[in-house]
């Protein structure tokens, strides 16, 4: 049946999935609000030049594009960071900083559906605009950890890195931009074999080559830096390492340091992030549940230079990870009877007491009603 198809990469949510999705969103939204973040809603489309002009690392081929009636190209939003930056820089400029904002939104990218991600997917997330420093970073990271905990993901871990460690190493090589992009791409894909082949052909100083090969597999506590003494010789990298040390101290104060691991292989969109970056994982799921970091350059693209940091949680991914652990269900019943007024009154009283109540609108005989209740797993209330 042609008429029953939906485009590849999209999905319907059935009642149980919606219930779980709403529960995830409700818990996250309540938590964000309690930390002083306020919800905003932006249009699902943005002008293409708004999205494209900011180097967010979204491939143009990933965008859903169409022409608006005004003749300009518009795109379905591929993330929420840019819409929020646009909104804040145009409408919330006069508010005291930092601005703390959150969202629950669908975003759109042409994706290969096999990676546990659809072309339309849902995110909940926060952005903190107008604050730099370890306290701002630590707040956002601690909130990410707490979000996972309040969603019931107990064995959750967060990997932390600073983009400038790899960035300044790459700068030091003095390689042409095209080669740097290739090296960066190999590191992002963790193709260590390809990286080694590539570096071998580049005649870099052995110490630098060794560092570039070690970074993607360096993981642990702050002691990872003791094993990479060469980083101290590179100014930008040394500064980034110091920033991470200070941040880990702050995370200890927030009580989340035990959830956080230094992972120098985490490189999220290098054009976009300017400092600390992080990703969250749970052993039950083969891909990250959340990601975020500091992006101090995006706002200046809107003529309002301000530091910024935030994260986004993949709602469907969280749903996959917690599928088996829903919350307590409210009791359900089916109310039936000949006298409609008395049926309604009984239903009203039960609903007031917190029951989920369906009415028998088909005036069925007792045996059919009992069968229906067995199938739905609910109580039958017959009003005489």
């Amino acid at each position: 049946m042609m008429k029953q198809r939906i485009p590849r990469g999209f999905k319907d949510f059935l009642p149980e999935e919606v219930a779980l999705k709403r529960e995830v969103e409700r818990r996250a939204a309540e938590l964000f609000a309690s930390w002083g973040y306020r919800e905003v809603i932006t249009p699902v489309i943005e002008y293409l030049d708004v999205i494209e002009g900011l180097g967010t690392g979204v491939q143009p081929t990933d965008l859903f594009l169409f022409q608006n009636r005004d003749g300009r190209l518009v795109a379905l939003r591929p993330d929420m960071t840019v819409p929020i930056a646009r909104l804040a820089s145009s409408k919330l400029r006069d508010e005291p900083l930092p601005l703390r904002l959150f969202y629950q939104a669908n975003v759109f990218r042409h994706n290969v559906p096999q990676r546990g991600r659809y072309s339309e997917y849902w995110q909940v997330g926060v952005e903190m605009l107008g604050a730099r420093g370890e306290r701002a970073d630590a707040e956002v990271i601690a909130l990410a950890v707490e979000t996972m905990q309040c969603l019931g993901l107990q064995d959750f871990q967060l990997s932390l890195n600073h983009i400038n460690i790899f960035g300044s190493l790459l700068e030091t090589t003095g390689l042409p931009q095209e080669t740097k992009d290739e090296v960066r791409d190999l590191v992002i894909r963790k193709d260590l074999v390809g990286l080694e082949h590539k570096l071998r052909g580049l005649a870099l100083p052995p110490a630098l080559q060794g560092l570039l090969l070690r970074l993607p597999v360096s993981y642990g506590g702050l002691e990872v830096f003791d094993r990479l003494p060469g980083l101290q010789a590179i100014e930008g990298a040394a500064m980034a390492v110091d920033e991470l040390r200070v941040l880990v101290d702050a995370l200890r104060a927030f009580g989340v340091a035990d959830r956080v691991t230094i992972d120098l292989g985490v490189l999220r969109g290098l054009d976009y992030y300017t400092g600390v970056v992080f990703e969250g994982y749970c052993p039950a799921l083969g891909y990250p549940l959340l990601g975020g970091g500091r992006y101090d350059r995006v706002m200046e693209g809107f003529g309002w230079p301000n530091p910024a940091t935030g994260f986004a949680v993949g709602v469907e991914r969280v749903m996959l990870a917690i599928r088996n652990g829903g919350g307590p269900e409210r009791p359900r019943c089916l109310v039936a009877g000949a006298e409609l007024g008395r049926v309604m009154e009984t239903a009203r009283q039960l609903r007031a007491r917190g029951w989920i109540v369906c009415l028998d609108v088909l005036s069925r005989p007792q045996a059919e009603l009992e069968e229906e209740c067995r199938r739905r797993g609910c109580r039958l209330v017959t009003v005489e």
Partner: protein
Amino acid sequence: MSANTITIALPKGRLVQPSLDLMRRLGLPTDDITEEARTLVYDFPAQGIRYIMCRPTDVPAYVEYGAADLGIVGKDIILEQGKDVFEMVDLRFGYCRFVVAGPAGMQGMPLEHLSDKRVATKFTAVAEEFFSSQGLQVEVVKLHGNIELAPLMGIADMIVDIVSTGQTLRENNLVELVQIMESTARLIVNRISYRVNYAHLQPLIERIAAAVADKEGTA
């Protein structure tokens, strides 16, 4: 994916013996593992190791979805499938090459003359990526076996395939026109278990890298 057991996906076929040899050199258990056996899963609880024997083309999927922590698979398959896995070590065995080949009459033909021709291959992604990176337009026909027959039967003008000795090409009167790239077996790892189970996996990965380098040194 369990914290105490490391699951390794091994490919059946030509890579299975060198893979088992490698496991043995590392001192990992390989008793009773044979390709002929119908067993698909071999458990060695005492050593905390489990092997899954699967089709080579399925190894990346087992690893990507976390059914296995580690896997051994040819670079040719990784490239063709474009799966999201970490490629950690070049194991140096299972050498083969991706080539464009055609009937003997095409020998010495400049690359740009291959444009607008039809190419038969099992590796459609690799073929499309190669020709488009050269700025050439070709029509790609996916076949599942006996690729070398395609030019003879008139299905295609040329083929993209993996060759190890070149014997099959010669037997079918085909000549290599261009080498696309070389391929060897690789050790791949699931991106989440690598992070969640780093303390177990990274030492094993480093031992494997060292064993490969050792053998290279003595060969």
